[in-house]
């Protein structure tokens, strides 16, 4: 807290250098994403701290999801997509460094807006699908990972007796928790969540939020959310993005959630968090 207060308040540019938030999981350096030459998001420089929840907030079109998807190279398959700047995972540039895209994706997992368990697979097969993709065949290891990840996703108690049932029989909230378990089974270092509760009812939303807080000790979480209360409730750090003049999103401010919501540097951040626009 003290360090935060001592941070360089005068600086107009968002900076994280002086905030001590513990070890860093991912670093973004001047990251920009463009599609067919049109910039969708740019000027993103901030650090994602280990074992904390970082939220990306901002109005529609500010490039939150685009930025998130750059973190596990999901843009690779989009024709015309280009990511510039540096994204470092444990100090390794994920686009140019010594890391394969499949390895990256096992270390940086993703949960999507809509619950999307594989409809042709059972609950168990869904949970271990990532391990199977990565060549794990040993039954004991699969079983162990399935149980541990389903427990972490707070799903084990309700599904342990029907692991062979198709995943499409689960409710929406359960499906989303299965998707979280599926990502956790690979024991990733970072878990990216793209508005994971936007398709869920309030009760299921609450459960996912509790889950995220409990996951912190196990994984670093980066979450995109439209919902400012959610960002305030669950995240430790917060990046605020806004669409610029040329309709490209840019990072306005990055800081601890507390500061973003209580004492932001940029007036636009204040306007947004107070609900004056967006």
């Amino acid at each position, binding site marked *: 807290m003290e360090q935060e207060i001592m941070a360089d308040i005068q600086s107009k540019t968002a900076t994280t250098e002086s905030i001590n938030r513990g070890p860093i999981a991912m670093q973004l350096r001047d990251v920009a994403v463009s599609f067919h030459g049109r910039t969708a998001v740019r000027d993103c420089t901030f650090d994602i701290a280990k074992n904390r929840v970082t939220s990306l907030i901002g109005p529609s079109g500010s490039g939150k999801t685009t930025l998130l998807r750059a973190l596990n190279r*999901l843009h690779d398959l989009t024709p015309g997509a280009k990511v510039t700047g540096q994204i470092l995972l444990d100090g390794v540039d994920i686009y140019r460094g010594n890391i394969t895209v499949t390895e990256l994706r096992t270390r940086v997992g993703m949960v999507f807006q809509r619950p999307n368990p594989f409809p042709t697979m059972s609950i168990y097969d869904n949970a271990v699908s990532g391990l199977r993709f990565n060549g794990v065949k040993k039954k004991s290891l699969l079983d162990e990972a399935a149980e541990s990840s389903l427990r972490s996703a707070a799903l084990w108690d309700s599904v342990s007796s029907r692991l062979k049932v198709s995943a499409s029989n689960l409710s929406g909230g359960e499906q989303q928790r299965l998707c979280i378990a599926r990502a956790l089974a*690979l024991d990733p270092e970072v878990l990216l969540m793209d508005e994971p509760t936007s398709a869920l009812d309030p009760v299921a939303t609450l459960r996912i939020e509790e889950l995220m807080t409990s996951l912190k000790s196990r994984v670093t979480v980066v979450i995109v959310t439209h919902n400012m209360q959610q960002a305030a409730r669950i995240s430790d750090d917060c990046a605020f993005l806004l669409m610029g003049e040329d309709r490209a999103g840019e990072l306005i401010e990055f800081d601890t959630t507390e500061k973003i919501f209580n004492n932001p540097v940029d007036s636009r951040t204040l306007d947004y968090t107070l609900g004056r626009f967006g």
Partner: protein
Amino acid sequence: MALIPTDLHVRDEAVTEINSVTADRTWYHYVLLGGAVLFGIISLGFVGTIFWSSLPTWVHHGWTLLTGKGWSSPSGPFGGLAMIVGTFETSIIALILAVLIGLGTSISIVFLLPRRIRNIVATLVELLAAVPSVVYGLWGLLVLSPWMTVTVNPWLNSWPFAKFLFGNPGQEFGTSLLLASIVLGIMILPTFVAVSREVIAVVPQDLIEASLSLGATRWQVIREVVLPTAKVGLFGATFLALARATGETVAVALVAGGVADAQFHLLYPGTSIAAWIALTFGESQGNEISALMALGVLLMLLNFGLSMISRALVNRQRRILAIV
């Protein structure tokens, strides 16, 4: 053999009722109803007439048509075994070729080609489907057949078990069951690709992204997620292609050889139900016409059954994807 993928688009359920027919009954309503009734009568006539004309054969010869081996014009006996065996043999080999090549083609179209080229290729597939079957037959007869005789057949005969599969070498002619299978395979390929491409393309993108995010390679995404999700619809496409293959007439008539021997050696000439009808009908009289009509009944039952299965499968796929 034009392509009508449209039969996959009509929804059987959830039809929004527009009550112009029932709300106020006017001349318009009666005209529509009259048309519908007339179409119903025509379709009944279609099935009924062919069945009726075949009746003498079923009464007098019974099951000979299914199990008999010889076909002697003009007085009989009329055995259909050779045609039935030939139909299944050529169709199934054609189906294997078309599914193997077609699945790869559909996957390439959806996952490898850039969007613009994808549309061009889709148009080409439609054009391939629109080529009249007699043109495929002509091509098979005048281009493929000489090439097979000179190049392919000697090579095939050097295989182990060649005698068992292909028959004694030296007895084959330019036209054969194998040539018919290949031409059929080429003909049903666009049918299969048109449906399977669509079925594959509608697999939700977020399932693909989810599997990629778990570290799957492209092929793993396709094998473990896309194909299983599309499985039912792909079977639907397969049955549709099989239905087309069994009903194909003039191309097989041109390239299969038109010999009604009940054998299955692939390099020997043979025939199929539909091709046999086309080849013999012109010179047949009385009983033989009835026997050919009976073959037509077989063909009809086979085709209606296959297309029913195909439709049911494609409808089920649509429901599966509605849940996802």
